């Protein structure tokens, strides 16, 4: 079994996955409530919490799987990209666990992890496919030819889609994190009530910062007290604009690249309107859209393991570049 650890942002997660891709345990301790009072993830607060949560989460995952460290064949961990202080907590724990039993360590690229949420059983997705990866930090179109990696064919030029959801939710007074809140509220609103344009940029790239500005103006144009009444319409219109941009670009890229299959992963893949709009695509299971360690252990099955003791001084990285 592979023990996976993930601490790149505000989820402390551990999972046990078999070599065949079966999930034996998948424990996620979300810090969302902790960060709500700051209106977003505070790196130092997240790192402090990871330190407290890693051991309990790992022990819980082992207990859920009815396993002990002796059943673990390799330790997988997110090496980056993410918050450097947060990553180092998970990486240090993973290295130590691997060291204690002379196991190999598999450093995993977090984005490869999101893609690998599609490689777990049941229902593992066979490459090649074009993958829309939409999270709080990234919005990418990936050409996935095999399970070991991906090629970036499009990216956001400014905000990520999840970031756009979060900023919109904040403008609408829905708190943090905002994606799920907008999703819920949008169901009660009219998506055509407001026309919120999304900038069209060349190629397969995305741009969401203009949309956020459009929402600012739409909110400002409201009479005092009107926001409360129009909130659902604004949420629905805003969500519609983001989903349209994501779906439009993804379909255009799939056609241009001749992709036979389209897949969607990442936190924004839990959005109900996006899932309905891309119902014919391979959608990451709901439980595996936002950060988790099962996807990290899954990616490790197709990544390069570092044998003991070559990983003892391994460092994390904050950004891919």
């Amino acid at each position, binding site marked *: 079994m592979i023990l996976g650890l993930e601490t790149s942002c505000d989820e402390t997660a551990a999972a046990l996955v078999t070599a065949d891709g079966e999930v034996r345990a998948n424990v996620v301790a979300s810090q969302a409530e902790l960060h709500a*009072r*700051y*209106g977003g993830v*505070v790196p*130092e*607060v997240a*790192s*402090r919490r*990871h*330190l407290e949560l*890693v*051991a309990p989460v*790992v*022990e819980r995952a082992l207990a859920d799987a009815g396993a002990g*460290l002796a059943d673990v064949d390799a330790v997988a961990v997110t090496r980056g990209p993410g918050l*450097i*202080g947060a990553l*180092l*907590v998970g990486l*240090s*724990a993973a*290295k*130590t*666990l691997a*060291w*204690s*039993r002379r196991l190999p360590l598999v450093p995993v690229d977090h984005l490869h992890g999101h893609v690998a949420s599609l490689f777990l059983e049941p229902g593992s997705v066979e490459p090649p496919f074009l993958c829309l990866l939409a999270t709080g930090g990234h919005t990418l179109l990936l050409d996935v030819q095999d399970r070991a990696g991906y090629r970036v064919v499009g990216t956001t030029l400014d905000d990520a889609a999840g970031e756009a959801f979060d900023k919109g939710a*904040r403008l609408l007074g829905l*708190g*943090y994190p905002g994606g799920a809140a907008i999703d819920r509220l949008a169901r009660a609103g009219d998506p055509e009530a407001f026309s919120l344009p999304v900038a069209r940029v060349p190629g397969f790239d995305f741009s969401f910062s203009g949309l956020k500005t459009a929402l600012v103006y739409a909110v400002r144009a409201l009479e005092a007290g009107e926001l409360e009444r129009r909130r659902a319409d604004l949420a629905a219109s805003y969500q519609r604009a983001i989903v349209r941009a994501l779906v439009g670009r993804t379909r255009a890229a799939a056609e241009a690249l001749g992709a036979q299959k389209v897949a969607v992963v990442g936190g924004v893949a839990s959005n109900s309107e996006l899932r309905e709009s891309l119902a014919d695509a391979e959608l990451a299971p709901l439980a595996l859209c936002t950060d988790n360690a099962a996807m990290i252990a899954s990616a490790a099955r197709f990544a390069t393991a570092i044998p003991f*003791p070559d990983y*003892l*001084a391994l*460092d994390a990285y904050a950004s891919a570049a």
Partner: protein
Amino acid sequence: MTILAFDTATDVATVAVVRDGEVLAERRSRAIRILHEIESALAEAGVERGAVERLAVGTGPGSYTGLRMGLITARTLAFALGVPAAGVSTLDALAAGSPGATPVIDARRGEIFTLQDGQPSVLAPEDLPVVPGSLYVGDGAVRYRGVLEDRGGTVPGEESEAHVPWARHHAALAADFGSAERLEPLYLRVPDAEVAVQEGRLRI
């Protein structure tokens, strides 16, 4: 009794393997390499990892990120090896290396960590009550040498071993071994965002 001790709270991370008071191996490095140094120190000491009976870890204060690497390593080691652990303040370890000296750790942002009436605290170097003729050790003392020496304090040369929180001292000072989960880092400051919320400066 075989103790594995380490401290990653400052720029110079240290590791020691100590058996019944005898230092079998001791190394210095950086926090990110701590596990590598632990492996090397155990090998040098001829101690199998399964033969480690106790852990002693530096609880800071110091760099938040460095400090956490040491503590998570200690907590994970305690779990994986099934051994009890104890925390030792990095200031206490520094002080133990230079009896009579005042330990001063660089707290960044123009501040220092030091012991005041035996308690770890954070303050501006200018606010440290310097006793003329007395000794100041640690990376904070090196950084603020001018401030300390201007007021009559003595700071050993930059290369002096006195500025390093050698892990042999953690092993010697460690008491009250128990569950590693209880080991709390000495941050001594709340995160900036928390200060902003409390002062009503953060609008969300």
